[in-house]
């Protein structure tokens, strides 16, 4: 078989490389990483910059030291819970509901609806009412759930049983409906305001009346004795989200911006408490012994210690919407979409998420682009400058050489890392300046090496022959000498690719990388800055391993290139 000479020339080094097992591994790994960079958009499971949110049927339980996350109840948010006579029911979004007898396991209920459910109420006779969006009203009678047709379109937010047969429901259009479970009849009660303010919650007071709360501090008391609804002043104009009244008469209303309204007993008046946090609170619970809890968005939980509300630390970001207190057990329920921060690796996020809920697998995949771009571009630039300087200095000698090599000497006096830092900091980080910072000093080694090689090559007979034949200096340099230093050039290229990748990672780690770019060093910078790296091992490990693997594979390749460049090494392998 005959091959063109340049191909035949390429085969020998290739065969030498193929004999080195480490070099083959290096080539394969580098190939994989290059493929990763090229196909990053396809490979990544998420947008690396997207802040991921998830919904979850979260349950937090009050333990000895604080509130602890329990196993989730399904993938949908939990909105309300009720318990009576040993039975507890939780309702949530998408027609989801869970029931529990005594202290058994939660069992999903099969409800004839897909609408979001907002409230649930139980009677001692095990009648149950569930209300929600899209006019959904479900009545359980003797174990079977039956839909009740609402008299008109409504989005119901609260429900309470007034006695064993009649229940009061409130909705977002200021609807107050009295429902008779025996006859299935609805009575619409006129609200004293009548301006369509959304009503959020209703609770049964100790005197048999019902207290309804809603937006803009609205509170309405319904008296079933005469069927009247009257306005009540609780002392707040903020949106009120939830009311709970204990059997002894203590009551708690919670609302937006840290609104906490408390009543010690049925006789005492309402007072507004100072909240230690002004986020929105979605549910409250109060006991007659003075115990009280309020929960809200982003894992907010406050407890009343008898004199003041105290923030209770929770390690959860979940938005809490309901409280379920049965005996000693206290459960906080949620959660609508919350930012999935610092999640450990899972099937959804293979490498977990960072402090902003961004997918780390996708970030790591995209990080390969910058690493390889800076690595190869920087190294090409370095080798281009270094080789030419070396060639010219070695070939011309004399004054040219002195000037060039003194320049190289000066550059050896400049510490690399600090110089790159100063350059990037003075001229604002950008991809160009990072590549410049990486390559501006590194060519000094290449220039020295190539020059020393050229010094001996220029005295060889073939150069002299070319000169005698009348070849120009450029022709001798680039056509006769250059091919002979080519293996060395490739060797240096490989080494400097590794050096450049580490240099880029270093700059990015110090927060000086190309802005807006995702890079391995940048991921570690974020991790260190957030302080979460001490616990989130999934955040630290992958970028470092990727940098190491990439550089290592380049080193393996360069080792076998060294054998190609220096035939003396071949003998002793």
């Amino acid at each position: 078989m005959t091959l063109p000479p340049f191909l035949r020339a390429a085969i020998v080094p290739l065969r030498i490389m193929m004999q080195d097992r480490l070099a083959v591994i290096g080539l394969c790994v580098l190939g994989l990483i290059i493929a990763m960079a090229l196909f990053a958009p396809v490979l990544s499971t998420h947008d690396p910059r997207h802040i991921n949110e998830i919904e979850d049927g979260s349950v937090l339980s009050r333990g000895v030291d604080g509130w602890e996350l329990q196993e989730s109840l399904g993938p949908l948010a939990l909105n309300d819970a009720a318990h009576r006579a040993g039975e507890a029911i939780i309702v949530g979004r998408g027609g989801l509901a869970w029931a529990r007898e005594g202290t058994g396991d939660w069992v999903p209920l099969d409800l004839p609806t897909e609408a979001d459910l907002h409230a649930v109420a139980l009677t001692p006779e095990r009648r149950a009412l569930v209300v929600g969006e899209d006019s959904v009203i479900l009545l359980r009678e003797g174990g079977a759930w039956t839909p009740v047709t609402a008299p008109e379109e409504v989005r119901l937010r609260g429900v309470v049983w007034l006695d064993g047969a009649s229940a009061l429901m409130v909705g977002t259009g200021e609807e107050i409906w009295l429902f008779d479970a025996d006859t299935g009849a609805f009575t619409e009660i006129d609200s004293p305001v009548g301006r369509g303010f959304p009503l959020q919650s209703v609770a049964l007071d100790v005197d048999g009346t019902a207290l309804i709360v809603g937006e803009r501090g609205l509170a309405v008391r319904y008296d079933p004795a005469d069927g009247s609804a009257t306005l009540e002043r609780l002392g707040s104009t903020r949106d009120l989200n939830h009311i709970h009244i204990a059997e002894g008469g203590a009551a708690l209303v919670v609302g937006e911006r840290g609104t906490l309204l408390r009543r010690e007993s049925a006789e005492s008046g309402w007072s507004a408490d100072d909240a230690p946090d002004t986020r929105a609170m979605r549910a409250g619970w109060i006991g007659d012994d003075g115990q009280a809890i309020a929960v809200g968005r982003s894992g907010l939980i406050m407890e009343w210690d008898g004199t003041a509300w105290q923030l209770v630390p929770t390690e959860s970001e979940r938005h809490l919407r309901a409280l379920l207190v049965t005996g000693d057990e206290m459960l906080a329920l949620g959660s609508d979409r919350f930012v999935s921060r610092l999640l450990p690796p899972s099937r959804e996020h293979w490498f977990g998420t960072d402090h902003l809920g961004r997918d780390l697998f996708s970030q790591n995949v995209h990080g390969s682009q910058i690493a390889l771009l800076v690595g190869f571009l920087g190294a090409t630039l370095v080798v281009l400058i270094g080789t030419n300087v070396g060639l010219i200095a070695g070939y011309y000698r004399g004054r040219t050489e002195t000037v060039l090599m003194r320049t190289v000497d000066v550059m050896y006096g400049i510490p690399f890392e600090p110089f790159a830092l100063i350059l990037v900091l003075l001229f604002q980080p950008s991809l160009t300046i990072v590549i410049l910072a990486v390559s501006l000093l590194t060519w000094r080694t290449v220039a020295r090496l190539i020059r020393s090689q050229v010094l001996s090559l220029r005295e060889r007979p073939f150069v002299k022959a070319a000169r005698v034949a009348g070849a120009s200096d450029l022709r001798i340099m680039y056509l006769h000498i250059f091919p002979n230093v080519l293996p060395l050039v490739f060797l240096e290229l490989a080494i400097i690719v590794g050096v450049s990748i580490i240099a880029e990672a270093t700059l990015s780690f110090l927060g000086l990388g190309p802005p807006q770019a995702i890079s391995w060093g940048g991921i570690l910078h974020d991790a260190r800055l957030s302080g979460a790296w001490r616990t989130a091992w999934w955040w630290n490990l992958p970028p470092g391993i990727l940098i190491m693997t990439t550089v290592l594979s380049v080193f393996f390749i360069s080792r076998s290139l060294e054998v190609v460049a220096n035939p003396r090494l071949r003998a002793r392998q």
Partner: protein
Amino acid sequence: MSRRGYLIKRVLQAIFSLWIIATILFFLFRMGLPDPTAALVTEGLNAEQRAAIRAQFGLEEPLWRQYLLFLGNAVQGEFGTSFSYRAPVADIVWERLANTMILMLAAIVLAYAIGVPLGAWLSWRRGSRADTTGIFVGLMFRSAPMFWTGMIAILIFGVGLSILPTSGMRTLPYDADGWWDKILTLDFLWHAVLPVLIVALYYLGSPLLIMRNTMLEVYGEDFIEMARAKGLPERDILYKHAARNALLPVVTQLAVTIGLAAGGQVVVEVVFSWPGLGREILNAVRTSDFPLAQASFLIMAAFVITLNLLVDILYTTLDPRVSFQ
């Protein structure tokens, strides 16, 4: 060329290099930070006070006068007052440089003390599994970025096992009379373990691989054959005959490494909060403390050049084969 002539030439070269670097530095800073006192606005200084500082650094003068002023001050070791420390820059920089040097020298000594014998041993066991593993581990630590290995080491030894301190040079608060008093304590040694180890692991690869490869070359030489023929034990041949002759390239590499040591490893200093010169440069430029940044860099470069020079001179003394050219 005579030895004396060589020395003079090298010293002149070093001074020339330093002058060039100082010049580059001066113009780099003037280009990047046209008004260095702009950063002082946030410090609550009014226009008059800023003008005073501008006058102190001669910033109102024409550029060439500024340049001469800068060079003149630099020669006298006068670098002005740090914006953020409100103290003479020179004092700060010298202490930081000492901190960097003790970290780097300890790490380099450790790396070569382990790497050289280990490399010799690997060459003796060439082709074995130990050899492959040794090369692999050496290259692995050479490839891993030090800030990452540092973070992992902190995670394991600082956070996980909590047996080693992970930040600073001493447990705070402490009082010490001067630098040596600070250094010559067990507490300091304890703090230095992790950073020194991380830098040493990074440097380990060079002596290991160079020693191994040179040893392999030396094995082919006649005098080794001779030693074998005399029936000397392999161990003696390895360490007494081969290793001594393979040391030269390692020493060359050691010289280069020490020469660049003053440049430090900025990331290691950052990760371990080591109050070194590299970290100081980073902080200084971040806070636009330009007198400190400029002086730190210049002194660092001066130190690198001086070390290079010393190592060169030492080298020519140690190895008579190196010609004075």
